[in-house]
């Protein structure tokens, strides 16, 4: 039951910077989209290695919760910058939160449907039960099923894979970097035949990116871009120093009393870094591709998840835009 962190409010990383130096730094509050784990390794590394301080920033990472997700924190002005998924960000923009993408870390969608061993194609799952998170992040899978006319019985679950282990569902929606590892390692005789990456079915909508409010961006463009740059530096460092990165992540998880499985975190870091590589360029661009963006908007609109068109230029900061 993950809602135990509902009680965690504004856990802060204590800064050791002397007061004199701190005066000159610009204070930034940042909220990743979930609790500390390797999914956000780049930010924890940047903090730990002092990349933010080098960029003239005094960054405080604020952990979100189910009741107070990062998008809400941004909307309420509780934090300056958040990390969230593209679909969530577009939905928030459509709903009136005027946010701006200042960095797009994810390039490949990580959603994977894992089916029980007897199902070897997506069509096999028509009319079958597939578990998905009730807390969100599942929208793209719904869209794909709708678009294909696949009538799937989506079962809302809080989290975890016990539904799948017990056989209560025929398939489960997982994150490639997260639950996928558990599902593949739970003694179920699941193979590559039973896994379906959404990105391989034309639904390659990138995920995590960094966002701030347009107003904040207009006032502090330099600092926002500096945060994005320092974060990229953190990710690049993580890519070069995976062992040290895992240590930093595990340490951070311990500080927040979150049980950690080193093997799982290693898997997560490896896959997160893999998903940051653009399939076409073979590189981590940290930018949002306009075509991909338009596809995401079209899919959401078609499925009535958003009402209005969202334009690329209004969504992406000038610094990050791809011409």
């Amino acid at each position: 039951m993950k809602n135990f962190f509902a009680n965690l409010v504004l856990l802060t990383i204590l800064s050791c910077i002397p007061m004199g130096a701190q005066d000159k730094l610009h204070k930034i509050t940042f909220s990743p989209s979930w609790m500390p784990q390797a999914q956000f390794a780049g930010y924890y590394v940047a903090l730990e290695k002092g990349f933010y301080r080098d960029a003239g920033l005094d960054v405080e990472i604020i952990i979100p919760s189910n009741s107070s997700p990062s998008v809400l924190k941004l909307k309420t002005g509780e934090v300056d910058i958040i990390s969230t998924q593209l679909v969530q960000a577009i939905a928030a923009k459509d709903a009136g939160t005027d946010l701006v993408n200042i960095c797009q870390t994810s390039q490949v969608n990580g959603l994977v449907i894992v089916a029980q061993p007897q199902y070897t194609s997506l069509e096999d799952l028509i009319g079958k039960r597939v578990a998905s998170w009730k807390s969100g992040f599942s929208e793209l899978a719904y869209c794909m099923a709708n678009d294909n006319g696949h009538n799937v019985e989506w079962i809302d679950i809080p989290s975890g894979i016990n539904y799948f282990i017990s056989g209560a569902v025929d398939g489960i929606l997982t994150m490639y970097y997260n639950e996928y590892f558990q599902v593949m390692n739970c003694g179920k005789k699941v193979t590559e035949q039973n896994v379906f990456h959404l990105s391989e079915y034309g639904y390659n909508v990138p995920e995590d990116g960094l966002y701030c409010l347009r107003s904040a961006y207009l006032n502090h463009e330099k600092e926002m871009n500096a945060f994005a740059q320092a974060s990229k530096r953190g990710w690049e460092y993580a890519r070069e120093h995976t062992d040290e990165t895992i240590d930093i992540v595990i340490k951070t998880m311990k500080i927040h009393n979150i049980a950690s499985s080193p093997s799982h975190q290693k898997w997560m870091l490896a896959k997160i870094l893999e998903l940051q590589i653009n399939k076409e360029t073979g590189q981590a661009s940290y930018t949002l591709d306009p075509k991909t963006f338009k596809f995401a908007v079209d899919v959401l609109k078609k499925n009535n998840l958003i009402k209005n068109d969202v334009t690329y230029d209004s969504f992406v900061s000038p610094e990050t835009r791809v011409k």
Partner: protein
Amino acid sequence: MKLFYNIKHSFSARFSLYILILVGVVFLATLSITYINSYRTIENAARENAEITMEKTTLEIESLLSGLSKTVDNVARILQKEPFHPDSLYSIVREIVENNSDVIGSAIAFEPDHFRQKGYYYSPYAYREGDKVSVKQLGTVDYDYFTKEWYQIPKLLDRNYWTEPYYDEGGGEAVMCTYSSIMKDENGNFMGVVTVDISLDWLSNLVQSIKPYPNSYSFLIGCGGTYIVHRQKNRILNESIFSISYEEPDPSISQRIGQKMVDGETGEEIVMNDDYLAYIFYAPIENIGWSLAMVCPADDIFAELTRTSRTIGLYSIGGLLLIFVFCLIAIRRVTSPLKSFAVSAKKIAHGDFNVALPVIKSEDEMMELRNSFDYLQKELVRYMDSLQNTASAKEKIESELRIARQIQLGMIPKTFPAFPTRTDMDIYAILNPAKEVGGDLYDFYIDGDRLLFVIGDVSGKGVPASLLMAVTRSMFRSASAYLHSPAEIVSALSAAIVDSNDSNMFVTLFLGILNLKTGEINYCNAGHNPPVLLSSGNVGFFPVEPNIPLGLFEGFEYKEQNGVIPNGATLFCYTDGLTEAESETKELYGEDRLLKVLEDKELYTSKNQINAVYEDVRAHVGNADQSDDLTMLSITVFYKTISRKIVITNDLSEIETLKSTVDSFCEEVKISPELSMQLQLVLEEAVTNVILYAYPDKKGDIELELSQCNGHLTFVLSDRGIPYNPLEKEDPDVTLAAEERPIGGLGIYFIKQLMDEVGYNRNDGKNIFTMKKIQNN
């Protein structure tokens, strides 16, 4: 190093080591078999023990879980059938909690809006709060139970369900799991669930109490391999047996075991767990899909065996050492006299025959050895005594033999030139006995113009032969003094030998009387080898009647023969020691080879002839022992000679006389100018020498005779001066430069080089210097 030395040199150490090795091998084999058997027994016992423990534990868990599930199933069944008031459910859940000490909470949860009056959520819930049991309505906006695993999964499965363990933050703050029994209405529609929550603390305690060995531990995993109970708390609910496999050196081990456990199998694996070998036993908990495993380090299982083996091993080593020491001492004790014997033997070897032998008290082989040693000692003393006597006797004999040899050789003429002043003949002989003394003989002497000579061979060798040889030689001298015919002399000799010949020995000989003026020869051959005649380029045997050897029969009539030796011819006599000389391959020298080697030796001096034959026979014999006495006698006669004799005084002015004499001699005998020159030089040198040194401070005569016959040139230089043998002077070192050489000696060296043969005699107060040269025109 000392140990190796001991083993190599000490019988006791070596033998003790053999015993040690043998006993050690037997010990080791026995221990190994025992160890292997014990190992298997213990392994089987551990296996059985594990099975029993696992079975007991799983049964305990199953019975508790099934007890609870039956209770809940009963409530669910009743609620399905019997009508009830929603509020009465609170007392039911309270009762369930109160009546089951293992239960920490119980709920009856219904589908949304099941009771119109109760709203969207209705779920009476009882739970422990300290010692008392409280109740509340569980479902709220904040606690939307419809998606909870304990509610939704049994609903989806359409059957009763034990949830996977989870950490409950709301109620017990403990690891717990929930059993849900589903309720359906009369139409078979899902109505809700009846649940009990149990804390897994008791399960944790129960599982962790399974500890058959000090370092063994047990763990429990859920349906997906997640740890439910593990001694490492951070693994519980956080890691699975599959996820931790990636942190291990070989992930496949944990994955394999995990798969079998998740599949509900019962089994056993022996694996390298972390750094040690461990036995892992596992068995499923039926009906709930969990699996229990027990990890037992092999070191623990076999600890007792290892300890016992170690103890036995230590005792064995101790025992082996004891055996070794005992053997060493015992064997050393038994064999210690051997050392003393060895010392005694060494002393005996060094000549101390009376050395004391070790005292042996036992009546065993050692005593026998001592007696043998004692006997050996006495025998050695005796033997050495007799050996000493024998040796001195032998020494005496040898010394006598040496004297005998000298006497024997003294009997025969062995000074050459034998007759230096006689230029009408050239005689030379050698006698080489095979042993100290021999049975060969030769003799010759001149009576007027007659040369009497004899060569003979006594049968056999050594002392007996030598004695008969001496007798024969003496008789030859005495008989030839009054008898003038060779046959008469031979007959007389034969008669004398037959008379006194008890040992059946015989003598072959060839006896001749040669007239040096005419070359006429009367001779008698008594069974001896025919001499070889070298004459006018021909080589052949001299015609002889064989007759018989001396000493065989009395009254045998020996036939005498006569003939003429041509002027300048050589009569070469020998004994069978020459023709029968054996080579290393036992081949005889033979007459043919003798004739062959003599073929071109006519123009040789007698001495050089004999030396040439001797060299040839030596080459034939090689390294073989000389088988028989070897004697050769060569006589060359020159009864028609051209000779010149001058007498000069010791004045250097006489050299001119010498020169003219030599010149006219050379001219007369047609000597080549070159040789003439050489002869001039040689004779001048020789004569000058005599002039200068023979007569210090007084006048004296010097006589030189020059003679030639058939290419044989003979020069005899004599004086009555002080005795002086120029041949005794050492040859000068001609390899040195002239100025570096000591003064003198070069003249004589020069003479020796140019002449074929030179000789010196001191006879009748005269120095006689003889020079011979073959004229090769």
